[in-house]
């Protein structure tokens, strides 16, 4: 078990490294003008530009730059932003912004889990009944219709009928968070509900449940004591990853409601070709993804006594 964990950790580190390298190389493929701010591009002479590039080590051979990149990574140095906030260390920028995203994300995650699982359970208990169908309609709507459309509808309803502020602001944090949280939760609720429902229905067909019926357990008890418990195990595996992803923030929701979180940061930094920031963010996202998956696997082993982890690789 320990050996497996260590191998997995190493594999994960390698994956992150490969991802970082790819992005690094892609960034280096951009024209060098992007090193400078828009102002500088216009004002500096060609010679000055060359000098600065030289000083920053950008004219060195790629391999050398790569090695330097790795070294900096190991030291936790993600470089300095070039365009979004000139010369501000990337790490600081991230530190400023992620609390907002994380807070909204965690609240939404909590709500989604509770509501989603509750809905799923209700659906199974009321299988093929009106509640089940309502739940299905909700799920279908949220899954099929583009999120932008759903958020727009929420916005219209919230702004017109409930008179909620249509943009996020720190001064009116509580009220202006309501609609963003709702939007964030919509699809997660549907996801958890569908997952719970499907899993429970699957478990319902298993043989050991027949033995439970035979020994005289009423269906309700079987559902709660056997089916639910068993169905939760795979669900738990996704929770660490979900928690980690809240750091990343939602690109669409945050932009839509003007939330100063991680989402717009990524979009803007790409749009304005702020290479160090992009690199830093990519490394961050890759690490989160990989750690989340790893933690999920660990949780699975803890919860399911059957799993004796062998060295089989798997995808998510």
């Amino acid at each position, binding site marked *: 078990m320990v050996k497996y964990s260590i191998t997995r950790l190493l594999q994960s580190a390698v994956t992150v490294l490969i991802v970082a390298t790819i992005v690094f190389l892609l960034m280096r493929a951009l024209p060098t003008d992007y090193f400078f701010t828009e102002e500088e591009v216009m004002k500096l002479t060609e010679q000055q530009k060359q000098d600065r590039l030289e000083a920053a080590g950008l004219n060195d051979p790629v391999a050398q730059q790569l090695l330097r990149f790795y070294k900096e990574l190991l030291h936790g140095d993600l470089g300095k932003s070039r365009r979004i906030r000139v010369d501000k260390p990337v790490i600081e920028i991230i530190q400023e912004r992620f609390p907002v995203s994380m807070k909204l994300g965690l609240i939404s995650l909590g709500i989604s889990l509770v509501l989603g699982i509750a809905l799923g359970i209700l659906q199974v208990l009321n299988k093929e009944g009106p509640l089940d169908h309502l739940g299905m309609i909700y799920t279908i709507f949220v899954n099929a219709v583009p999120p932008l459309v759903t958020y727009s509808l929420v916005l219209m309803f919230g702004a017109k009928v409930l008179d909620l502020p249509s943009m996020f602001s720190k001064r009116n944090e509580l009220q202006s968070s309501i609609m963003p949280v709702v939007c964030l939760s919509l699809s997660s609720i549907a996801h958890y509900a569908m997952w719970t429902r499907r899993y429970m229905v699957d478990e319902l067909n*298993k*043989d*050991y449940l*027949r*033995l*439970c*019926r*035979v*020994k*005289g*357990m*009423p*269906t309700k*008890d079987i559902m709660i*004591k*056997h089916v639910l*418990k*068993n169905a939760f*195990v795979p669900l738990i595996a996704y929770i660490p990853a979900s928690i980690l992803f809240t750091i990343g923030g939602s690109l669409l929701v945050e932009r839509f409601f003007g939330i100063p979180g991680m989402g717009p940061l990524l979009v803007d930094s790409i749009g304005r070709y702020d290479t160090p920031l992009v690199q830093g963010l990519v490394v961050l996202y890759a690490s989160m993804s990989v750690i989340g998956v790893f933690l999920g696997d660990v949780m699975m082993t803890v919860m*399911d*006594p*059957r799993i004796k982890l062998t060295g089989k690789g798997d995808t998510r």
Partner: protein
Amino acid sequence: MAENRQPILSAKDVEIEFTLRGKVLKAIRKCSLDLYKGETLAIVGESGSGKSVFTKSFLGMLDANGSITGGTITYDGNDISKYKTEKQWMAIRGKKISMVMQDPMTSLNPLKKIGKQIEESITYNQGIKGEEARKMAIEMLSKVGIPDPERRAKQYPHEFSGGMRQRVVIAIAAACRPDILICDEPTTALDVTIQAQILDLIRGLQKDLDMTVIYITHDLGVVANVADRVAVMYAGQIVEVGTVEEIFYDAWHPYTWALLNSLPQLGVKGEELPTIEGTPPNLFNEVHGDAFAPRNKQALAIDFEEEPPFFNVSETHIAKTWYLDPRAPKIEQPKSILSLRNKMKK
């Protein structure tokens, strides 16, 4: 055996249908059976004859696409074939009638400790909870022959071998303290060496807990070992019932003859092993007359026209075949059966 006892469970002319791919399958066709207290009854028949389906109906455990469409099943004064709600079945399942199913590998919840699963049995049927239930569960484990029950109760199913898992399943079924225990091919999935142990175990429990046991099996060896009475089933009907001696040495239905004939033990060295040619009828279609007639090399014309009623061979032995009608031509039981009987007489 007292012949005029009242049966504790009496099934009369039961019919069960399944809807499959839009068509109707008549799995059980006018099947009747009586069960007497304290006996061990074996239901024999080939795969697909309907043995499991028939007994599942006693517990209301038919699959969703099946239903009882005719006949009555009388237990404890009630007609349980008409039970529809779960509440009604709760009074029967576990407490009165319990079942041991075929495959021990999938019958247990893999994520729950064994002890807990037995405790549930006790709690739901005897109302005992907590520490006392735990103790009873451990006691049950040792009764079924699991060594070191205290430690084992805290383990998970995958830590047990197949034979031990079956013992656990038996423990769960027996912990309900049922009046009737139905064992559906309990030894089919197990090694031959374990088989005898399991049969002994069930026999012991039966005496201990004063249960009536129904064995479902296709293995005549098991029948010879455990049964008091035997019921032979073919194509959804019981065709012959009698004591175990009567069935083995004095059978009258041609299907029973064919079954007994095909026992490898009765084969003569050097000669071809007898088999029953043909296949059972497709129960999607209506069956005319005796279902076994097409495969019977000595069938009567009337076998194809009308279904035979039950004829009495003795007070405890009935068979559903036209051979026993006084109008039928003289039929002799096959040589192998006669020779068996002679061998036993010695």
